[in-house]
């Protein structure tokens, strides 16, 4: 039973996994309240908003760099082993990755301060799953080819880099219109980690060389670590009185390993039609102290097999020289576990954009309290069309990763807004995305799809993402 649970858990984890967490379609798409989550300083043309619980924001991303499913599994008659050798083992580099994320907006509410209408407050809870697995190139070559034909080649252990986590985030943000030109925002966050596993900054190598005495010498120099929290109790849950569901729920509700963080952002109006924005997200940390289990492999060992050198070995006639050899290696490169607490910094994300509005704008009117038809009578939006660029940078285990986006945004009538993007990043240079925001009275629905060209042949796509959600919005004049 525990195995089945583990498999299901792993599947969920895997499916939820890939991606660079870039939300270029949602960024500055301020008709959608969830845009506050990626820039707390975005324009907020709402009196209040309430996300429909659990479906106000669902975002799934998946990406692979360097290879696609189609590259391997296309029914092309090419020998599968040849494809794996050419496109995976020899084709991918240690900087290629498989990754993804799932974000689920559980609660999202915002309201304008009646006494200080330039302030807009928002708060809520969202859950996030993400995994990044870098391709362990050298170890893959070692597994595929072996060491016999790779004498003197150092197989680097630094290629071992992986990260995965599940957490919930409780947040509260303030968005303030400081002046007609400047809007600032900040959001405080409490992280509650459900589980985490990470292995990075590893070093060392395995090499086979000509021996000093014997024909061959194998050498392992290792400084490798896998840090986990929250996984041990899940794996060994069978012996627990608490079900896995209850365990995960408890951890999600501030019962996990806790951390603190913040987001900041701004929107600055350069002139009537041009604005710039920026945000810095997830500046924070999680302190892992509960259910921590770390695995380490550290040391140096060289081995040429059993050595019998007379006359010294006459003393070993009654000892188990094989067992001694094994013990020596295990002592030189011990594989150990510990429960030392550790701190994980959140993957900081940076957004920046410039935007130019053009086209005839609808005439604004003063505030009204006209309920369901508020959009029809009073447009709080300051554009008809907009174009611009967006830069996204995320700090990943092997260094920063960037994505550059050009976008076009337009409003069609009062109810519909569309945004089209072209994005170039590590995963693809042909990422065209399309976002739609639809307002029916107070009900807001949005759906944002990425890398649409990939839908021509989904298995051949390096990247896909989809976000959608429902909100109830009462609009404010901006």
């Amino acid at each position, binding site marked *: 039973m525990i195995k089945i649970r583990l498999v299901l858990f792993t599947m969920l984890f895997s499916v939820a996994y890939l991606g660079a967490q870039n939300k270029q379609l949602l960024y500055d798409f301020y008709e959608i309240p969830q845009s506050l989550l990626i820039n707390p300083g975005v324009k907020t043309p709402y009196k209040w908003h309430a996300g429909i619980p659990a479906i106000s924001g669902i975002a799934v991303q998946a990406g692979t760099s360097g290879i696609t*499913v*189609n590259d*391997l*599994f*296309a*029914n092309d008659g090419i*020998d*599968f*082993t040849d494809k*794996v050798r050419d496109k995976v083992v020899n084709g991918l580099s240690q900087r290629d990755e498989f990754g993804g994320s799932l974000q689920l907006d559980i609660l999202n509410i915002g309201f304008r301060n009646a006494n200080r209408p330039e302030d807009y407050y928002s708060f809520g809870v969202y859950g996030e799953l993400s995994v990044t697995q870098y391709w362990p190139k050298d170890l893959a070559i*070692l*597994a*595929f*080819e*072996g*060491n*016999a*034909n790779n*004498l003197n080649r150092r197989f680097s252990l630094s290629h071992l880099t992986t990260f995965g986590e599940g957490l919930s985030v409780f947040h509260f943000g303030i968005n303030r219109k400081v002046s007609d030109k400047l809007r600032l925002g900040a959001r405080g966050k409490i992280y509650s980690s459900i589980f985490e596993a990470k292995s990075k900054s590893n070093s060392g190598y395995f090499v*086979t060389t000509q*021996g000093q*005495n*014997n*024909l*061959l*010498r*194998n050498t392992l120099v290792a400084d490798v670590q896998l840090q986990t929290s929250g996984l041990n109790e899940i794996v060994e849950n069978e012996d627990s009185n608490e079900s896995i569901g209850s365990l995960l729920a408890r951890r999600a509700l501030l019962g996990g390993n806790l951390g603190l963080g913040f987001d900041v952002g701004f929107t600055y109006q350069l002139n009537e039609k041009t604005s710039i924005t920026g945000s810095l997200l997830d500046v924070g940390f999680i302190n892992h102290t509960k259910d921590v289990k770390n695995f380490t492999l550290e040391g140096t060992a060289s*081995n*040429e*097999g*059993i*050595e*019998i*050198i*007379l*006359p010294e*070995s*006459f003393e*070993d*006639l009654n000892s*188990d*020289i*094989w*067992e001694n050899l094994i013990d020596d290696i295990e002592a030189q490169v011990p594989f150990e576990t510990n429960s030392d607490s550790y701190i994980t910094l959140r993957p900081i994300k940076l957004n920046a954009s410039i935007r130019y509005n053009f086209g005839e704008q609808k005439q604004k009117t003063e505030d009204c309290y006209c309920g369901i038809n508020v959009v029809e009578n009073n447009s709080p939006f300051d554009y008809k069309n907009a174009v611009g660029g967006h830069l996204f940078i995320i700090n990943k285990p092997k260094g920063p990763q960037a994505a550059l986006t050009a976008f076009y945004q337009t409003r*069609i*009538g009062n*109810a*519909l807004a*569309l945004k089209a993007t072209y994005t170039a990043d590590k995963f693809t240079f042909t990422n065209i995305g*399309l976002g*739609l925001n639809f307002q029916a009275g107070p009900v807001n629905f949005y*759906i944002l*799809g990425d890398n*649409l060209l990939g*839908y*021509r*042949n*989904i*298995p*051949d796509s390096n990247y896909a993402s989809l976000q959608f959600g429902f909100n109830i919005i009462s609009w404010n004049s901006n």
Partner: protein
Amino acid sequence: MKKVLSYFFLFLLVSCAEEQNFDQFDDLSVVPTLATGIFYFESPEDVINQLPPGSFYNQTFTFEAFNEAFVSERVLDGAITYQLENTTSKELNLLVEFLDAMDNVLDSESFRMQPQPSPLFEREVAYGNGDRSLDILRNTIRIRVTSENLGDNTSESSANEPRVILRSSAVFRVRLQ
């Protein structure tokens, strides 16, 4: 507006996928070739001279490298290479025997070496693929090394640091997938 919505959902939902064949994974063949030293034996001539002619070293030691499940269940074929060097003044015989759990001799290699000057000698013994049975290696859990001086125990070689050396290594192909 309906048109716009229709096109959007059409784009997202009506997608294409080239035919994929995931059964190909069953055809994946991962067969690395692994290499390692097995054992090294060395005896200087003065040690041999300190003992009467005949057997001067006999040792049986555990050797479970081939018997490990990872190797025994996956090994396809392989070879053991022996390299011998004798710079002593004596004719020597080295015997390497592979033993099972009951100390039955599964296989053996005997090396008779002439006194110095004798050339570096190398022998490769193949297992699997019609050569010697892989079961020999799979069932080997001990190795016995016997060294025998077939000459006298007084003569001395003119070579610098005279000694007898037996080196050995194994190269095996194992199927991981």
